């Protein structure tokens, strides 16, 4: 239930992270209370179009049969330093496994809709 607003923003193709309405600290995933000041006032900030790969993995073993046709694929931890380093798990869709790297700059790229849901994914930023 705390997560719904995040996905409603995504449906409007806006990547928004929760921010404390009192002290301004960003946080993810959405939670009802600010861990810094315990306020329950919630605001939202739109993420910048560019983030950076904080870390990543490349999945080769399909841990669910539905993924067998998808491997290998990367899972990237994308950080937004200007939003208190809040991090989003996502994918960089246009980078082959051997070129994935910590620190890579990536740009937001919407994919969907699937069952009405838009997913925030990323492409490598132009140099």
């Amino acid at each position: 239930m705390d997560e719904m607003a995040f996905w409603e923003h995504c449906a409007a193709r806006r990547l928004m992270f929760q921010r404390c309405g009192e002290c301004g600290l960003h946080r993810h995933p959405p939670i009802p209370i600010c861990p810094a000041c315990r306020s329950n006032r919630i605001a939202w900030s739109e993420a910048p179009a560019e983030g950076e790969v904080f870390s990543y993995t490349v999945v080769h073993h399909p841990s669910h049969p539905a993924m067998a046709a998808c491997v290998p694929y990367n899972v990237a931890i994308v950080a937004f330093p200007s939003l208190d380093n809040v991090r989003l798990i996502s994918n960089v869709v246009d980078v082959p496994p051997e070129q994935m790297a910590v620190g890579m700059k990536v740009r937001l790229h919407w994919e969907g809709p699937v069952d009405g849901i838009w997913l925030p994914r990323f492409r490598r930023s132009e140099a």
Partner: protein
Amino acid sequence: MSTSGRACIAGIGQTEYTRWGRIDRSEFQLACEATMAAAADAGLPVEELDGFTSFSGDRSEAALLQTALGIPRLRYAAMVWGGGGGGSCGAVDQAVAAVESGLANYVIAFRSLAQGQSPRFGRHRDGRLHGSFTAPFGMLAPAAMTAPTVRRHMHLYGTSSEHMAEVAMVCRDNASRNPNAVMRDRPLTREAYHQARMIADPFRLNDCCLETDGACAVLVTTIERARDLRRAPVRILASSHGSGPGWGSGALGSHNMPVDVYASVNSRTLGPELFARAGLKTSDIDVAQIYDNFTGLVIMALEDYGFCPIGEGGPFVASGAIRWPDGDLPINTAGGNLSEAYVHGLNHVVEGVRQLRGESTSQVEGARTCFVCGGLGVAPTSAVILARD
């Protein structure tokens, strides 16, 4: 949380360990067998048991065990929250709290895990923590979930696949001497390690723990009560479970744990507190059982718990420090989750007791102290320090 050192392990028990799906009795029966074996080892009648603790949502509930084992009075039944093996030493911690406070007299800490009979552990299911922020992006299993923390460690400190290979090979070598280890007849060379298929980069096949069927248990009581039992007690100098801030959104969630501890196993505060309560330094530890869900996390655990400085876990293992018998800190002397069996790390506690009884198949000469830690990178994590008198 124990400070007094009045609690001890008076008995250990286990079933055989097999590859998953190969055991012919129910997971619940395995729990009963491990419990009875621990009581028999201690020389305690089963009907004297009055408490059970476990972790990771173990399906063999205390009241069911009480019923099956004909135990007249149950005084303590506790479960540590959290998934994986994070609560293995936490279950011991709960048992310590029970016997030291007088809430119960003889408490069994156990784990029974027949993976062939239950939803496969680690496979994605709806309802996983923060699932809507992980599953749509293919973050489905613990190998993938924890791999980015190790990749970050490699980026920051130069940790390499050679370092991870060392951990895998040490565990496999120790398993070769343990007749109860699932991988006892499967030697692992460095070449074979590197040639094995990738699971979730940087983890190859042998970086990942086993999937097995089996159960084990330890009997926790006070030193005073243990004096009337059959075996020399192994003292629990300190036990602890807990978490640093933000790890509810950690590696198994959305990866938003504090940035300065991202490449860690969530035990940087738990470790120093544990050693302080035991009155020991890490250099006082003769042998260690380090939870090994994935090799890279073992390297980070050695740092978190203070056996080497932060960032130096790779060179530490490469130095031969963790090898039996000549390393300064032989680890996982029964083979660990990687090569003995995956009983969610409670098998590490059992092996710790064997070391301090002088009964390990990779015995560390004259071992008087053993450090054991539970699951890594989860929340809560847990650890115990064991000693013989």
